[in-house]
């Protein structure tokens, strides 16, 4: 277990070194959310929707949505992209011949982007609070375990996409499509009540809606659509069912590549 942890830390450290070696990335990580927050701060002042009692109501609502979009973009966009990059540069071979192995190695590549996404989310909330006066609820600290549970529930989707990358070598268009779709049906920018009835079912069959609802409730006191216990159960349920399926699919896709000989192709 110690060797496993040290290998995982080695991969995280590697990704940290690579990230920091591109200095403008750090700047853009800080400036990017600031632009998005500013944009939505002024848009919220233009809105007068009965769902929200004040412009500040929508601002708080959408800021939590932005945080979730950040995590989604990284987990569903950047992670499969990183694995594709490992294939193209040939560095995936290190996982394939190491004691740590390809599945652990690929999971290791998810750790730095995930931590980065969480930090970026926290930065977004801090900027919105300090610069734009977003009033955070007293229950905000409870959002941390919920966010972690949410990340676990999102992870299978990243694993599915990574498995597709390992088997078919390309997934960029699909991940973009999925992130955009989830942003709509998960109610990340607007309440799902505004969606047409025929589309609303899609909000109930993925973990993003309950995670977003809970996070909003804990961070900015938005009323819950369903009771908190039900939302939590949904998150746990999605994690328990989808996570083993995600790992299995990743293993199968690697095995498939090893048998056909395409595992290190790009």
């Amino acid at each position, binding site marked *: 277990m*110690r*060797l*496993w942890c*040290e*290998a995982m*830390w*080695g*991969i995280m*450290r*590697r990704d940290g*070194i*690579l990230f920091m*070696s591109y200095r403008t990335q750090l700047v853009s990580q800080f400036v990017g959310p600031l632009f998005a927050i500013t944009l939505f701060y002024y848009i919220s002042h233009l809105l007068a929707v009965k769902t929200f009692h004040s412009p500040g109501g929508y601002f708080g609502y959408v800021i939590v949505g932005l945080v979730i979009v950040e995590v989604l973009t990284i987990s569903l966009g950047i992670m499969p992209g990183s694995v594709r990059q490992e294939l193209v*540069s*040939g*560095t995936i*071979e*290190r*996982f*394939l*011949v*190491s*004691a*740590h*192995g390809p599945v652990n*190695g690929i999971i290791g590549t998810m750790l730095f982007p995930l931590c980065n996404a969480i930090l970026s989310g926290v930065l977004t909330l801090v900027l919105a609070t300090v610069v734009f006066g977003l009033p955070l609820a007293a229950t905000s600290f409870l959002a941390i375990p919920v966010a972690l549970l949410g990340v676990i529930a999102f992870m299978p989707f990243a694993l599915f996409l990574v498995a597709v990358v390992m088997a078919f070598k390309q997934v960029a268009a699909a991940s973009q499509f999925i992130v955009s779709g989830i942003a709509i049906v998960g109610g990340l920018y607007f309440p799902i009540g505004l969606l047409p009835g025929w589309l609303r079912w899609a909000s109930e069959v993925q973990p993003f809606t309950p995670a977003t609802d809970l996070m909003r409730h804990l961070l900015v006191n938005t009323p819950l659509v369903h009771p908190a216990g039900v939302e939590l159960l949904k998150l746990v349920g999605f994690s328990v069912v989808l996570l083993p399926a995600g790992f299995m699919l990743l293993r199968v896709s690697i*095995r498939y590549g*090893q*048998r*056909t*000989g395409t*595992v*290190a192709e790009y």
Partner: protein
Amino acid sequence: MSSSSVSAPVTSQPHTAGSAGEPVLELERLYHKWKGPKPPVLDDVSLTLRSGEVTWVGGRNGAGKTTLLRLAAGILLPQRGSVRMGELTPASKRGLYRRRIGFLSAGDRSLQARMRVRQQLDYWARLAYVPRERRAELVALNLQRFGLDEFAERRVDRMSMGQRQRIRLAMAFLHEPIVLLLDEPRNSLDDDGYRLLSEQIELAAAAGATVLWCSPRGEDRVLTSDAGYTLEDGHLEQIE
């Protein structure tokens, strides 16, 4: 590099291999066919690698040498036939199997371009499950073994092809594997680099490891090879 050219070969603790001549890695009746109408690249190929021996496999480009090495390393799984190291196979007890393998692929890939050389070796040592107590020692030893000391803090993408090849070789040897699988290891190496490589191969074999070396041309054969084969039309032929 010049400092290494006058020094004695850098040794390390002996590999935990069996006694000389004992089978270490057994490839039996391997078959591999790539998609498409072409005939199989490996057809009923068997090879036994023994402790303390150096084996060379040659053959024209595309003959299947890299596929053979990848199967031996467990990167690919056999479509037919088997790869065994005692009780271990690449499909079962994978981690233990891979801990005993040192692999060098052909070309200049598989390096983290923006990492420093020492960081690169430390990263690999972690992936190879080298215990913390021995990691720094083995990294330092392999920097020395391949004449990389003076470049330890240099970024990999700022190094020449020959220097990169030395880093890749250092990674193949670092965790003291008992099976060394080297695909065109002479690529881009200067005379000094080749000498260091030959020394390390000899030392590894003397310590009980087995070495399989592939290259297309006979002149690339390592001086100390105990057996030589050519791969042609999917079949392995022993040569004198």
